[in-house]
């Protein structure tokens, strides 16, 4: 079953085209990778999927479980179980991580036990008494973002660079947490990554490569990953133009 599908999606922000006719889909049980150089439009695409009001869809459609949600608001999309773990989550001074986590969990009927289990998997228990992201290290922020996203028990998540700036041990923790999310009801995921490190522990089926606002190639995750690691992004451009 097709969970998410973007068809020829074009997005503008601040009057500038940042995503150009992107088509991509994720089926039940799939983990899909999205590669692409800095500034190619990956985060912009994610924000448009979420329904961020500053990212205007100027062409194409988004389908979620077969329904056209292109005109849905952010709030409506989130309530369907679609969300994203942000590349850069904000600092919330004055709000303790533990308090916020409990509020999110309660709202989504996630039990205290599950909360504790996720905190354990991601090793963030010692951060619960601190203000959200204030003074957290890069790796701590990434783990906390996965933690809070998991507490929503979403159906579909775009993980925007969950493995960037994260040490090898933390990559393991994050993969375990994503695995746990599938146990808790996650049906599919799109993982934006520069390294593909996570695929050592999580099985990704396919991968897309985005360059200069467009998807330039698509294929089995392992093959695409190996090519990018060996040859960089050039090979994709060539393949496309041939």
């Amino acid at each position, binding site marked *: 079953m097709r969970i998410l599908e973007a068809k020829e999606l074009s997005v503008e922000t601040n009057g500038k085209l940042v995503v150009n006719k992107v088509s991509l889909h994720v089926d039940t049980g799939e983990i899909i990778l999205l590669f692409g150089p800095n500034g190619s439009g990956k985060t912009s695409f994610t924000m448009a999927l979420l329904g961020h009001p500053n990212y205007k869809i100027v062409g194409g459609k988004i389908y979620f479980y077969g329904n056209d949600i292109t005109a849905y608001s*952010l*709030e409506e999309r*989130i309530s369907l179980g679609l*969300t994203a773990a942000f590349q850069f989550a*904000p600092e*919330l001074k*004055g*709000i303790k991580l533990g308090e916020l986590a409990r509020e999110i969990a309660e709202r989504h009927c996630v039990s205290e036990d599950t909360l504790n289990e996720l905190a354990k998997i991601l090793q963030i228990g010692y951060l619960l008494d601190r203000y959200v992201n204030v003074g957290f290290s890069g790796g701590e922020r990434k783990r906390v973002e996965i933690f809070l996203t998991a507490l*929503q028990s979403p159906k579909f998540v775009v993980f925007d660079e969950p493995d960037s700036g994260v040490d090898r041990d933390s990559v393991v923790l994050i993969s375990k947490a994503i695995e746990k999310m599938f146990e808790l009801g996650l049906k599919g995921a799109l993982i934006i990554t520069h390294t593909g490190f996570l695929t050592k522990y999580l099985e990704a089926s396919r991968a897309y490569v985005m360059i200069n606002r467009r998807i330039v190639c698509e294929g089995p995750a392992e093959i695409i990953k190996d090519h990018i690691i060996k040859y960089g992004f050039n090979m994709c451009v060539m393949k496309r133009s041939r």
Partner: protein
Amino acid sequence: MSWHNKYRELARNALSKIPAYGTDIDLSQFAPKETKGDIDLHSISDILESVGISVDSQNRAGEYYQLESIVLERLSKTPGLEIMSLEEALDIYGRDLEPYFWKAVKVDTDKFTAIAELAGKGGYFIRIKKGQRIQIPVQTCLLMSMDQSLQAPHNIVIAEEGSEVSLITGCAAMRETVGLHVGVTEIYVGRKARVNYVMIHRWSEAMHIRPRMGVIVEEGGEYVSHYIAFTKLKTFQSMPRVVLYDNARAYLSSIIALEGNAKADSGYLVELKGSGSSSEIASRSITKDRSEIIARAHIVGSAPEVRGHIDCQGLLLSESSRILTIPILDAVYDNVMLTHEAAVGKLSEDKIIWLMARGFRREDAESILVRGFLRVDLPDLPPVVMSMIENTLRIIAKSVL
């Protein structure tokens, strides 16, 4: 009481003295009111609770209630703690009170201190005996309910050497009234004593509020003050002056949330006069509708090794409201460390969107952010006081949006 005449004379001469800050007020519109009859405090317990006053609480070391110019009740439930009205204290102690009478606040500061001396009635006199450490709070409550009323109590708090006390002062209007409240409060924190002072205000739309406050903290003493005003009002101006001697410390915070056409000019003046003294001023201002807040903070460091820090944050919740922060650091000695941080703005749209992505509705996301904004890291306070403050802030965060 001839010694007293001197202060009356000074007051008479200051009756038309324009205040240094804030809107001037024509005093002739207001007069003290002596209300008649019994009022049942239980019937207004919800108003009282919103300003931290608990009618039936066993968790209070003592109480003082004043409605308009009438002292309704004063009661100490704790040994070593004296509570009475200022008139009673003057009767009993006479001239012995002079060292604490108009010393932390000058009687001729402006027309408001003058009118308090000349026309004011009541006010609490609270003394904590040497070495007494009282863990549950004393509550004092000043209520107004009549039009054209002037309420101008003169409060004096004396914490003797090595003592400790927490005071909760709740001031409220029981209904929509046009009135002027000038509370004069002098606090004397003795050597190695500690006073925690929490004041919560809730007024009505047409009221003018002019607290006049002075605090003197002797060597090694500590003063913690937390002012919370979530309120309608017409105008507010207050600038408590806190003087610190050797190794004394003060933590001064205020949270002011205004709506309607309210205008406030609020701040603290701290004088670090003793070596090793230190102070922190934290303010949080929130404006809605067309309200305006001027948030001042002024620290003067004039002794060796003093430290002072100002943290002023403002949050605008409407297009036509205004917040002006004025931090002033004045070092008149070379070996001092004075710093400040300030920020004024709206709620961050990025943070709202991120919270919405975590499953909150927009209103809930905003109220979470307001709650975070209101949280200042208070130094250790007794648990009863802490939970009262947290409760009040939760109410504000919910209703401010």
